[in-house]
């Protein structure tokens, strides 16, 4: 009997090893178009992006019957994607042809010799139609390595219902000083804070810094850390003052992407929030009760006539040096993100403000969709209004470290623990090499 048991175990062992070994890495499984055509492997961290690429691959095949591609797109969790990609590029094996890289992680991929390919050959033909700052952020030594989905223009979303109750007209708010005053009124009349602030994320802080005139923001133009710049200290001080007076509160859940925040805002917890254009999708998907109550306006500026917006966030999609068909990969990428059709689809499917400015006043883009139903028509008119005031940001090798410091210590220490902004910034800066 015992021998029989042993024998059975042995059989189970062998068969399970066999099954385990049988799972070969790449096969034709998962490749679109039945595996026909040039095989392209793509990684992303957002399922919506994955669906978008798959859709564009189909369209490409329709328009290019002689140059078919077979796409395998996979979505990994955000941190995981960047780690995997970095390790694969580092070790020289296992990287896909194309990958999304989020902007605050992009610096990691520019260190040393970039293991990703310059994309200028496909960008140059379309260059004049593209918002330039969205190309500069992914460049090193004059070569551009990533192509973005959107401009990510920072705007401000007002809860009209609350604003009306307080008797404040959003169009009257032109500067941050105006905003503070309006905030006091709203607080007095309704008891509701004017806004919430990101604590573990950078979407409240960074746009305000980027709005400052001149070419420096969190990094100087030359890539050096700029955290101790007195004007940045002032920005942080401004935010801290808002919190001290109750005009702003740290976002529930510590950032505007948490379940706590969605629930809070959906129940009318705050009168406004400033986030990039791509945040629209969060409203439609997670804050249904606010439908029809939110208006999108340009952000206040630091002074009259100063820039009102900045390009925030972004996903720089790259082609890796491990791609077996770099030319096809580049062409597909350009089609998906640089072409007119691509840009129109980017708005329609993803709700992003596309990087080709010649698309913004096209009728297709102003058609009805779930965003116009929620926010009202003329979403792009706000964008067109600030078209020439969209500041770029400096992205470099230090960006991941700076971004990390902002998200982990700086905001928390100053806006929750009420530490002195100058001190917090100086301490953080000293730790970044």
């Amino acid at each position, binding site marked *: 009997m015992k021998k029989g048991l042993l024998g059975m175990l042995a059989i189970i062992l062998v068969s399970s090893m066999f099954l385990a070994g049988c799972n070969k890495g790449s096969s034709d499984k998962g490749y679109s178009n039945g595996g026909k055509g040039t095989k392209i492997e793509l990684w992303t961290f957002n399922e919506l992006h994955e669906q978008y690429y798959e859709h564009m691959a189909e369209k490409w095949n329709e328009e290019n019957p002689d140059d078919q591609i077979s796409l395998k797109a996979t979505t990994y*969790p955000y941190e995981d994607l960047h780690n995997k990609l970095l390790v694969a590029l580092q*070790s020289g094996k296992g990287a896909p042809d194309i990958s999304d890289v989020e902007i605050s992680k992009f610096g990691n991929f520019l260190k040393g010799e970039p293991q990703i390919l310059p994309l200028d050959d496909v960008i140059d033909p379309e260059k004049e139609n593209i918002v330039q700052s969205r190309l500069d952020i992914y460049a090193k030594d004059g070569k551009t390595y990533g192509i973005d989905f959107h401009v990510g223009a920072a705007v401000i979303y007002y809860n009209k219902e609350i604003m009306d109750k307080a008797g404040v007209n959003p169009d009257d708010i032109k500067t941050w000083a105006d905003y503070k005053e309006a905030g006091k009124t709203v607080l007095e009349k309704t008891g509701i804070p004017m806004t919430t602030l990101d604590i573990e994320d950078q979407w409240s802080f960074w746009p305000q810094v980027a709005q400052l005139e001149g070419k420096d923001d969190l990094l100087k133009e030359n890539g050096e850390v700029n955290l101790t710049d007195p004007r940045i200290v002032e920005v942080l001080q401004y935010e801290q003052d808002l919190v001290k007076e109750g005009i702003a509160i740290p976002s529930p859940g510590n950032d505007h992407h948490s379940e706590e925040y969605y629930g809070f805002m959906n129940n009318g917890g705050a009168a406004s929030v400033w986030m990039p254009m791509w945040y629209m999708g969060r409203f439609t998907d997670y804050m249904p009760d606010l439908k029809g109550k939110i208006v999108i306006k340009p952000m206040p500026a630091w002074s009259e006539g100063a820039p009102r917006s900045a390009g925030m966030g972004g996903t720089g999609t790259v082609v890796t040096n491990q791609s077996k068909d770099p030319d096809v990969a580049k062409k597909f990428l350009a089609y998906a993100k640089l072409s007119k059709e691509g840009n129109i689809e980017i708005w329609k499917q993803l709700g992003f403000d596309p990087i080709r400015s010649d698309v913004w006043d096209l009728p297709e883009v102003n058609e009805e969709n779930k965003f116009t139903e929620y926010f009202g028509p003329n979403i792009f008119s706000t964008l067109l209004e600030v078209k020439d005031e969209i500041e770029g940001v400096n992205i470099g090798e230090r960006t991941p470290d700076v971004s990390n410091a902002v998200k982990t210590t700086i905001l928390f220490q100053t806006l929750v623990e009420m530490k002195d902004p100058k001190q917090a910034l100086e301490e953080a800066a000293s730790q970044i090499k």
Partner: protein
Amino acid sequence: MKPKKKWKLSSILLILLFVVIGIFALFPLFAITLGSLKPSTEIMRYGLNLKLQADLLSLDNYSYLFNGETDYFIWYKNSIIITIASTLSCLLLTSMVGYGLAVYDFKLKNVVFGLVLIVMMIPVEIIMLPLYKLTMSLGLMDTLVGAFLPFVVAPIPIFFFRQYASGLPRDLLDAARVDGCTEIGIFFRVMMPLMTPAFSSMAILQALGSWNNFLWPLIVLRSSENLTLPIGLSTLLTPYGNNYDVLIAGSVMAIFPVLLLYIFFQRYFIEGMTAGGVKG
């Protein structure tokens, strides 16, 4: 004459103590099972709570597991395959090593045992990157085998088997030798059957570890169809909204096989721990 068991005060207190502990232990699992029966928008708005809310209860979330939108059942299958393969191969190899260290006297004995202890101490994170490169060169990336091979000769079972084997009667060994058994034969035919309790406990420990293993499979496994259950579930947590419906229901279902395994084998597990004696 043995007195009948009386309901002494101390008994009652003890029971109460353990009831409280039991509640503490099971309460989170109850909360999450309840949560899995409610739509995830509830969780978004109100967090996990205990309100029964009978009108909201449904098995909808579980249906998502079955509808093929996620690869949930493929992950399940992969986890089962890896758990079985790694546990069996681990038991075989580690029992050999533990036995060898316990029963024989040879020059390097203490050195090897010391090495085993050292391997036990090092968290895998320290050697993760070179191990990753190695796995790539061996062509084991994104394979189920690659997800467990580097750790199959695990130090803790070696340690345990060594302790256990030290307690086995030596005369059996000598008798077998007289009978003309090869040394290997002695191990497989005589000693191994004697170590069954040890095998049971280590089997459960290894199976548990393998089922819940996270970090290394996270690095090695790529394509969705090769993921194991914990990794697959974690892909549902994204910064763009957590797919709590599937995540919570999926987590609840992930507990079941292990629960069953434990319920059926707990006797052997205890026997193994007990008899083996982790003696000095």
